[in-house]
């Protein structure tokens, strides 16, 4: 005879095992990483990264046990112009061959309503800086094949100079706004 689920949960909890945590694998097809930067002080210019991966561990019962890890390959940068993409990947900006990945790893997660304050470290261009993201959990739903999907999104601004990306200051703004919209498939 199987023990009731709640007894199993209590036993596992007492052993420090997270019971209610769901792990979502980020779906790159339905996730977006978009950035904007001021060009010549005239207007905001937008670009995106076509690839993103990672996992979100989401603990409904104890959000502090949740975690977020997002990896974006720099090679996937896309600004709708091959020459500009080549320039962005060069040592002038992202230096994609020396620093091929942009990585965010959470350290703590706090909750406030449906917003999660995720504090962690962002590694970009070989520089790691602490960063807090306000991630708004959007919803969960069943996908076409019955899989559970969950999503969240955030917008934050970084100074590229903080990450050693100083080339063409003036012609291009220092502030870069990032729009991160993630959809994950429950494992």
């Amino acid at each position, binding site marked *: 005879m199987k023990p009731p689920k709640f007894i199993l949960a209590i036993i596992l909890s007492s052993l420090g095992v997270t019971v209610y945590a769901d792990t979502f694998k980020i779906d790159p097809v339905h996730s977006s990483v978009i950035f904007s930067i001021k060009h010549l002080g005239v207007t905001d210019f937008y670009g995106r990264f076509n690839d993103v991966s990672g996992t979100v561990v989401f603990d409904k019962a104890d959000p502090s046990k949740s975690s977020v890890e997002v990896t974006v390959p720099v090679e996937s940068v896309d600004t709708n*112009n*091959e*020459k500009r993409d*080549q*320039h962005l*990947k*060069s*040592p*002038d900006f992202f*230096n994609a*061959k*020396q*620093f*091929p990945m942009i990585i965010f790893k959470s350290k703590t997660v706090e909750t406030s309503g449906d917003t999660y304050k995720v504090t962690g470290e962002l590694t970009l261009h*070989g*520089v790691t800086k602490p960063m807090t993201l306000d991630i708004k959990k959007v919803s969960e739903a069943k996908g076409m094949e019955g899989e559970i999907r969950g999503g969240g999104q955030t917008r934050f601004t970084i100074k590229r100079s903080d990450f*050693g990306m*100083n*080339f*063409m200051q003036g*012609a291009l703004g220092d502030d870069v706004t990032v729009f991160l919209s993630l959809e994950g498939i429950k494992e």
Partner: protein
Amino acid sequence: MFLLKQLLPGMLAAAVISGLFAIAGRLWRANSWGDAVALALGYAGGHVVSVGWPAFPPAEATQWLPYFAIGVMFVAVLDTLLRPSGSVRALIWFLLCAGILRLLLGSKFQYGWSPLEGSLWIACLAAGLLVLTAILDRAAQRDVSISFPLILAIVAGGTAVALMLSGSMLLGQLAFVLTAVFGTIVSVGFLLPRAVPGRGIVPVAVVVLSGLWLSGYFFAELPAASALLLAASSIPALMLVLSDEGGNPRRGLVLRATVVAVSVALAVFLAFRASPPMS
């Protein structure tokens, strides 16, 4: 206009610093190593004015270049003063090049090469630099005119254009800084001709130029053929230096400049062909 604003401060700083040291070197009769100091400090000064003082240890490959230039400058000065035997020089230079390449291409070991693959690359590249240095060194010992720095100025200028076409304005900018230094040494050499050739310039020139070619190839999109052509472009011209002793100096200078310009132009053309269209 933007490009000019970006390029001018570093090039001017490089020209002023290298000019002062090249003149001082001639006045103090530091014939064998004066230009090495002018080249290294001129390049390092122009680099810092262009992109700021690099942290130590540098995070990016290009940030190593001013440190390499200054470090190799000391080696070049010692070399001209101590004059070690040929095999000792070759061994020291090979090991030094291998160390420099290991630092410059460190991220390839992290993200691309296995230790064995990386070691093979480093050994082959260090051997290539050794050969290039030996050829330039022989020519520098014979060439008492301005054609030696002029040839290097043409190579550096072509490197700058090829690197810009290969997606990196930053690397191109640094190559233009180097062009300004060689151009200044040519001008000073024209105004204050020296009696003894300055072979000390060779190690610094080889390290900075090869640092730019390798950064362009490994970290930007400089085609391998362009990088190889740029590396080899000075060799035919310098062979003419070796075979043209006693000839008409002005005609010889034009001939050498033309020979190097043709191969540099081909390297630039190949970089242009490989570059994505502007729009």
